[in-house]
């Protein structure tokens, strides 16, 4: 049992913080105000990721042969914490690094690796994730977007929904059904689909969580070359399952929630509220929830670092992450009342972020089902 960072890790975190202080522009709060889907933050993320790549930190957890540094899962976790804490200046590119790149390494052709990995490693490209559909929701195996083979192309028809960042992306990691007769897990394939192909239309869905966060994407007879298919035809489900495992823990929401809590405590102290023992105890409880979520995330990273296959621990960590963020959001509302609901205020930003938590990492219900099934050995329904 060790629960201290190594000297090298401590130094890395300090370097990272110094880099952020130096690199983030003075108006970063303004840039990031309307969320990672906004034009301002999307544009800035390209600039930022290029600098991160220059430092060798953007894809440090990748193998050296793909431009990485074989860094430990812990080092990558430190990067994730620091990025998320300051509002994720990587924007959508965290997806590239965390699971799109690694999945291409695992399943991609040489041609695909050469085409996609270097731009990701240099921080030059933005991706989006084309999973959900209007009629399928979290139940991905019900997807209906069809890709019918026609010569060297697939002809894609259908639509995707909740597609974050697609308005700024060059590519979409797109799930399609290549066998129209198939059902559920069978007959699904993945296309590494350029976004600028003829027949693709994007509609923004205005939301409470900032500009251009959600979109609907319509595909009308879009011709995608067969060479863009990732992995074997009709057997994309295994590839997705693999990719999702990389993404399992999700963002370091506990870290940002803990920081938010510190800030809330500071403001409560300014108002003289913190002398009330009951208020203090509420803060203590919320803090314990953050630390619990951190602990569960670290368990997953610990396993990953040891090369163990993913377990239900990952689902546990995701749920705890969400709960911690929501606990801090509710505390903010209870403590600061209507001030916490002012748009752009510290508490309001956190509250809106917390509204996305359950959506972003997969429904809490589904995670609980997996915990019950895998962890407690309870039967599936």
């Amino acid at each position, binding site marked *: 049992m060790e629960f201290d960072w190594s000297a090298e890790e401590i130094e890395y975190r300090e370097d990272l913080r110094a880099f952020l202080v130096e690199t983030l522009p003075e108006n970063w709060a303004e840039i990031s105000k309307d969320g990672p889907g906004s034009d301002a933050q999307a544009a800035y993320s390209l600039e930022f990721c290029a600098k991160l790549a220059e430092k060798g930190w953007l894809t440090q957890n990748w193998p050296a042969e793909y431009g990485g540094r074989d860094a430990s899962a812990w080092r990558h976790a430190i990067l994730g914490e620091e990025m998320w804490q300051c509002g994720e200046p990587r924007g959508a590119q965290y997806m590239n690094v965390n699971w799109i790149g690694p999945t291409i390494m695992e399943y991609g052709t040489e041609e695909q690796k050469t085409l996609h990995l270097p731009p990701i490693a240099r921080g030059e490209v933005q991706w989006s994730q084309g999973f959900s559909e209007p009629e399928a929701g979290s139940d991905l195996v019900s997807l209906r977007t069809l890709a019918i083979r026609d010569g060297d192309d697939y002809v894609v028809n259908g639509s995707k929904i909740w597609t974050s960042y697609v308005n700024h992306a060059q590519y979409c990691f797109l799930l399609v059904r290549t066998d129209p007769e198939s059902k559920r897990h069978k007959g699904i394939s993945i296309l590494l689909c350029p976004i600028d192909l003829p027949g693709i239309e994007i509609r923004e869905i*205005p939301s409470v969580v900032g500009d251009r966060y959600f979109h609907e994407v319509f595909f009308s007879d879009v011709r995608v070359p067969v060479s863009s298919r990732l992995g074997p035809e009709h057997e994309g489900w295994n590839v997705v399952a693999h990719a999702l495992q990389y993404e399992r823990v999700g963002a370091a929401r506990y870290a940002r929630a803990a920081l938010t809590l510190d800030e809330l405590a500071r403001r409560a102290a300014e108002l003289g509220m913190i002398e009330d023992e009951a208020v203090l105890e509420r803060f203590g409880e919320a803090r314990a929830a953050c630390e619990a979520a951190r602990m569960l995330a670290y368990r997953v990273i610990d396993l990953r670092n040891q090369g163990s296959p993913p377990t239900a621990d990952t689902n546990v960590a995701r749920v705890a992450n969400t709960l911690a963020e929501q606990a801090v959001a509710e505390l903010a509302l209870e403590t600061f009342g209507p001030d916490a*609901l002012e*748009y752009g205020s510290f508490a309001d930003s956190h509250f809106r972020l917390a509204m996305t938590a359950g959506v972003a990492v997969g429904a809490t219900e589904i995670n609980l089902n997996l915990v019950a099934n895998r962890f407690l050995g309870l039967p599936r329904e």
Partner: protein
Amino acid sequence: MSIDLGFDDGQQAVFDSLSQFCADRCSEEVVKSLAGGFPDSLWRELAELGVLALATAEGDGGALEAVAACEALGRAVFPGPIASTFLATQVLPAADRALVAEGGTVVAVGSPPLWPWAPVAGIFIEVADGRAWRCTPRGEVVAVETLGGEPWGRVRVEREADLGPVDPALSLYELTLAAYLAAAGTQLVEITADHVRTRKQFGKALGEFQAVAHPLADCSMALAAATGLARAAGFHFDAQAECTRVAAAAARLSACRAAVEAAQVCHQLFGALGITLEGPVFHISRRIRQLASQPPDDASARAEVIGGFGL
């Protein structure tokens, strides 16, 4: 005479006619389009119906009629400072009271610096330490955008006239707020129940999953209780019963909790659709969030009295 929890004919008539008014004039689209602004014409129409004058000497009704009105308005998530206006009509002198009840001016009830509806308000009433004061703004009202989509504002004020003890006006405020919130929460639960009845995932209707059905059942239970407590408080108010203050506080506490819980559960069940501006629930949940933390609060008075509740 004994306990009877239904509305009488007059109260039912208020509920029915306002429900019809809302169906005609305050659809989901109207509510969404009004976010961020004040519903000028709607508000005047509401006043013309005599709703804002209920529970005043001049008005045609009492607190229970106001509760019936708020149940109808809450179902439609009708915008505007409804409960605050009921409070104002209790503490203002006759001329101002008439102006407010006619929809001629809007009230901001709270305490400085952050006031609900301040950018459009003509009358400011501060509530503190058990009393109400008529106030005058000093300096510019700085508009504030809120989660609830209501126009709030920051402004310093100067106390101008002591309007006397805020009770029983605060009780009327709390019980009408409770009736509105319980109704809005019930609306949210019904929309969500409808959604999970029809939406299929993993091969069955969402509502077949206990993880979906039970939280909704919990919410409907808490909302039913809050609805009843608001009506009971209205009855006590009209009877000028001693327990009115605590009954109103219990109703508000129950309704705020139940409605906020309904907002949480419904967002959990609607997922991404819930946090879109055009979706079926955010225009309701945002108002619930805002109203549940709206001043005047006067928590210490509430805590003090709530210990001694009993029928």
